């Protein structure tokens, strides 16, 4: 799992046993993490001065993921998807991954339905936010908290 440097580095640098079980000498490693503030800043970059209202967006993720490497995600937005009224974009952000941006989808009336799915990485238990931009310039969002677990037996590869 890419973004879990603290645990990985325990096993490699400390030679495995002690660090893996939390026994003996512990080498502290500062994990690379974004912060909730960094996520807000990333959202601000996308929406500018506009207000983001909760609603109309549905972010579906499992509340507990079996492995942070691969967490399925689906976002749908209520919209008639006509030339006059459609979803322009859907952006996904995380709070505590090393960087807050995850993906930006660009849609349009030709999509027919505003619904996209993918699989993402989550470095740790955290909040995921989906922000949608509509053709009228308004922004809407949904938020999900996901608990992330680790594989029990990390290998040396």
């Amino acid at each position: 799992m890419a973004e879990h440097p603290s645990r990985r580095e325990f096993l490699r640098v400390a030679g495995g046993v002690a660090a893996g079980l939390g026994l003996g000498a512990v080498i502290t490693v500062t994990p690379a993490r974004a912060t909730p503030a960094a996520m807000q800043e990333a959202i601000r970059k996308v929406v500018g001065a506009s207000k983001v209202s909760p609603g109309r967006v549905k972010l579906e993720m499992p509340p507990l993921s079996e492995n942070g490497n691969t967490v399925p995600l689906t976002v749908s937005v209520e919209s008639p998807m006509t030339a006059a009224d459609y979803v322009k974009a859907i952006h996904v952000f995380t709070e505590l991954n090393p960087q807050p941006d995850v993906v930006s989808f660009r849609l349009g009336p030709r999509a027919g339905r505003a619904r996209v799915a993918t699989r993402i990485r989550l470095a740790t238990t955290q909040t995921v936010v989906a922000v949608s931009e509509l053709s009228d310039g308004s922004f809407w969002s949904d938020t999900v908290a996901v608990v992330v677990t680790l594989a029990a037996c990390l290998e040396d590869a």
Partner: protein
Amino acid sequence: MAGALINVPERAKRGEIVEIKTLISHPMETGYRRNQSGARVERDIIRLFVATYNGTEIFRAELHPAITANPFIVFSTVATESGTLTFKWTGDNAFSVTESASITVD
């Protein structure tokens, strides 16, 4: 691995919304991992996915390292006419893969 796995219905009715699923082989190396000697493994990801329908862009995704290896993207489009859907993935280290699928629209 095989480059990509595309799932597009072969036929659709005019006006029908069709779901398209795409899967492509790629490690999506984040740039945050370290190798055995402690050195950072350089970032190597797909950054852009663009879908076109008879030459017109219908969908685009801008990817960051948080997208899982072997990126899976599902989206939809309205079946407007028979023709070709083209999918292009581009990224770091001059990565570029293009695949197409035909659709017959009645």
